């Protein structure tokens, strides 16, 4: 079956621009997670959704970052006024429930010039 998909696979943007990253979870998976993988910080948790609700936003690095999920399916991570330190691979994962195995997408590689 289809796994978690993310788009775009690569994104190059200029400092100060806004970007939107998209995640399509596995069908039927109620939990969705965003992580960031960067050279300096390794793999770090950003935010998770249970259904359309995001109970814990403490992992978001600044108020320039926001995320939403609609219809219990697709999620969008938005970064406003991008900075060079936002350059990283953004990973999405989904799971059947909160205690189930997380399945990862291929990631979106973001480069902020």
């Amino acid at each position, binding site marked *: 079956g289809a796994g978690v998909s993310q788009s775009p696979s690569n994104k190059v943007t200029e400092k100060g621009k806004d970007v939107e990253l998209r995640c399509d979870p596995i069908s039927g998976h109620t939990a969705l997670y965003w992580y960031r993988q960067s050279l300096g910080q*390794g793999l770090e948790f950003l935010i998770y959704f*249970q259904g359309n609700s995001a109970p814990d936003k403490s992992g978001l690095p600044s108020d320039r970052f926001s995320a939403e999920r609609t219809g219990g399916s697709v999620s969008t991570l938005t970064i406003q006024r991008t900075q060079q330190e936002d350059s990283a691979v953004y*990973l999405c994962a989904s799971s059947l429930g909160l205690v189930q*195995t997380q*399945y*990862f*997408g291929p990631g979106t590689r973001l480069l902020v010039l």
Partner: protein
Amino acid sequence: AQRVTQPEKLLSVFKGAPVELKCNYSYSGSPELFWYVQYSRQRLQLLLRHISRESIKGFTADLNKGETSFHLKKPFAQEEDSAMYYCALSPRNAGNMLTFGGGTRLMVKP
């Protein structure tokens, strides 16, 4: 706050040799521990989780609560085991978000 430490960034062994990838954690509660693997040009995938007590691709990992460790072991490494390995912890609370270690790159030489 929880923390996961993988002391080795790179581990190089010869094919057929035993391999042990170290993982130590700190967490005040009772966590769940995982090993994830990322092969070249592939996505991150679960290798094993401690509650399953399985052996996957010949790898095993035992949770040692006294030493707060969850080392990954394989008695005879294969070239196809070459990959990036990440140890991860979940607090088993409502969110189940993963805290990852820095990763260890395993290179198995022929």
